[in-house]
């Protein structure tokens, strides 16, 4: 017990015992089990609470949880009426976080998002500029229909999403942890939309497509929403617990060949690379290194959600589409041939697998 590594293990043990078990007198073997089992139970409870309000959409819910526990942000894309906003509101209730919502419109200004300094008069009659924080100062921010605002307003989120802080009038204000942005957008073909810039898109850990519900799910939606009242969603997870899980996620080990698999996948999306000729034909810009980070970090969360303690190649494959579909830019050839990013990524994944 006098080795430094074991001391570090003991400190981790105490930290997780404090977060999950609440006691400090348990033995090490028991505390090793405790955080993991608590995590699994908490995640199952969150899923159960979300399923009270959301019918189906299992992959979307899992993707949102992966992004939340990995410390990233998520972009939901789908036509109106599929429950995107409902999902975010339900998640906010289940995790007991401070929640705010911004409805993006074409006349929305950056000050409406991050806040502004206004003149206030104190009791002495003296006036001063006081910063009034905007709706971005929350733990869980819903940017609804983000592509309806102008790029100027969209870029107001850049600093907040990457560095968890905003700067107004040369004053930097740190956002409270955890800070999680869930943005929804309609497909770009809809009228009155502004496509998100590439730098803004790259800030999102995952881009999830919200599919239309199936026939059975649609029946279930009608039964729930047209009869009686909806169920009440309970708080099952709080902010400190989410931060503890985020730290634990980063400890999940990755084998070298799994990491190499993720790297090869990302490199295969680059047209100048020799990995894949498909990218050279249809892709103008490949994925950024954030794509590889997403594959590994999201894979760690997914492994923990499945009760594993190591990242596997299947985790990387499962996250390939939501992690890279918004990080590759297609060229005109791809648009002319009607190729979508998902199709290309599937083909690239098949090519790399056959090595």
């Amino acid at each position: 017990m006098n080795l430094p590594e074991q001391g570090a293990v003991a400190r981790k043990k105490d930290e997780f015992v404090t977060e999950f078990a609440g006691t400090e007198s348990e033995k090490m073997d028991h505390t090793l089990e405790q955080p993991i089992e608590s995590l699994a139970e908490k995640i199952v409870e969150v899923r159960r609470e979300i399923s009270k309000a959301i019918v189906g959409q299992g992959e979307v819910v899992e993707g949102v949880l992966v992004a939340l526990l990995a410390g990233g942000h998520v972009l939901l894309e789908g036509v109106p009426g599929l429950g995107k906003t409902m999902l975010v509101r339900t998640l906010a209730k289940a995790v007991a976080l401070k929640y705010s919502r911004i409805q993006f419109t074409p006349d929305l200004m950056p000050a409406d998002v991050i806040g502004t300094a206004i003149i206030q008069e104190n009791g002495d009659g003296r006036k001063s500029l006081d910063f009034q924080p905007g709706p971005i100062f929350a733990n869980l921010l819903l940017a609804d229909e983000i592509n309806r605002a102008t790029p100027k307003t969209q870029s107001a989120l850049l600093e907040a999403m990457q560095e968890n802080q905003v700067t107004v009038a040369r004053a930097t204000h740190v956002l409270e942890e955890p800070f999680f942005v869930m943005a929804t957008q309609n497909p770009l073909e809809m009228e009155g939309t502004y496509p998100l810039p590439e730098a803004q898109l790259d800030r999102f850990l995952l881009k999830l497509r919200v599919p239309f519900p199936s026939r059975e799910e649609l029946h279930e939606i009608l039964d729930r929403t047209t009869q009686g009242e909806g169920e009440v969603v309970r708080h099952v997870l709080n902010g400190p617990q989410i931060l503890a899980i985020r730290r634990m996620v980063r400890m999940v080990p990755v084998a070298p060949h799994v990491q190499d698999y993720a790297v090869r996948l990302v490199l295969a999306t680059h047209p100048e690379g020799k990995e894949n000729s498909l990218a050279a034909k249809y892709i103008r810009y490949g994925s950024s290194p954030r794509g590889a980070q997403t594959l590994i970090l999201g894979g760690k969360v997914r492994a923990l959600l499945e009760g594993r303690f190591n990242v596997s190649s299947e985790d990387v494959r499962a996250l390939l589409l939501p992690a890279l579909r918004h990080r590759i830019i297609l060229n005109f050839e791809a648009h002319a041939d009607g190729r979508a990013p998902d199709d290309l990524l599937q083909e690239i994944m098949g090519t790399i697998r056959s090595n």
Partner: protein
Amino acid sequence: MSGPPNGHPILEKSGPKDGRYPEELRGLIAEATFVRRRVQANRYLAYWLASWNWILGTLILAAAFSHHMRGAAILAAICGAISALASFVLARRKGPSFYAAAYQLDAAAGLQDRLSTTVHLAATAETNWMVLHQRRDALARLKQVNAHELFPLQMPPNARRTAAIALVALGFFAYRIKYGPPVLTLIQKTAETHLVSAVISPLARLIENGPLNVLDRQPKLDVLDEEAAAAGAPTQDEKTNPSPPVGQPDGENPNGAGQQNSPGLSPTDSKDSQHATQAQNQTQSNGNLSPDSQQQNQENSTSDQNSQKGASDGKTPSGNQAQANGPGSNGGQQSLGQKLMQALKDMMGSMTGQDASQSPSQPSQETQGPSAPGQGGQSAESAAKGGQQGTLSNDPAKNAPEKSGQHSGAGNGTQPLSAKQPGQDAAQQNSSNLVPERVQLDASDYRVQTRPREMVGPGNAEVPLTNASALGSATTNGAEQENIPLRYRQYVQRYFDQGQK
């Protein structure tokens, strides 16, 4: 298998520094060791069978060609033993590491990289509570895995091919117990038959008339033209259009036409024509010879004529003709095709048991009597030398009928000469055979024509101001869109369709 392929450097990581894994991983290392040995054994079998493919193939060739089968069998056994040893060393050297073995066990058992991650973490000596969790999870899953079922000792995929080759080799051995090498026997039997000559004669004909010979002949004709022009002799164009014969012969003997049409014909030349006729008669009467040998006889008789001319009348153009047409008359500068053809002729002559230099001479001796014996005994090489000694004649009117008579008698060219053909046609045909590639141009003075030069100077340009507007029809009927590719039109159509939605 989504990871790197077997043998990837990232899988060949070294183990712990002290070479010892943690004690609790003993079961995992044992399983990985078993997988490693099975992989090595399967690789060993694959390598060894692959080497046996080569050994058996070589043994089959030896059985087909060689008389010494005992030595070949002993050598094959030695090679088999050496290949077994080499395959063992190679399989052991290329054996997977513990990490790679665990990776293969993961993939086979569907353990989602649990074991390989554990082996990697044990090798890096990284320990924290998450690593301990991961190790415990992997060992718990390992108990449910039966590596013996997942990694059986399996035959390599090329085992059937090796078995087939071994059966063929055994069949050859059984055959060789009673018989000799089959391929050698087959070659000997084939060489004794006329099959070889039947196969090679079209090839020889092709080489003789092929483009190689034509290309080889063309520059010589040009040189002849220049020399003849310098000496005042008629050019090749003139030779291709010889003067028509003065008197029309009976038509029974086409060679006689050449004699009658040449007023200044020497006795030697008439003798040549007779000799050529006799040679033709000899080749026609020699029915048991192959067509190729007949052609050879004709060409040899032609060589005899040329050599005779070169010996008797050195100023006749027969020497030039031999340069133009004869294969061995180009002053030692034979082309590759000619050399090959000569080699084929020699080979065929040796196989059929006939001497190429003697076969045309014997019939000519029988038919011609006293005038021919000394000349017919000359070989083709001596004829070529005689052709080289000949020089250009200064009498063009005399040379043309001589050449036509010689070619008609010798049967030079690809078309056989018939007795019913008129003498004039034969003369024209033979004369056209000299330069079949030359075509006279109708307009050859194009270099003399000058291009009229236009003078350009300062002035006033008048631009029509009327009818300067664009045509309305070009923009109304959409004809200019027909040049837009279909895929771009579909793209624009899809873009507007989606905008309307």
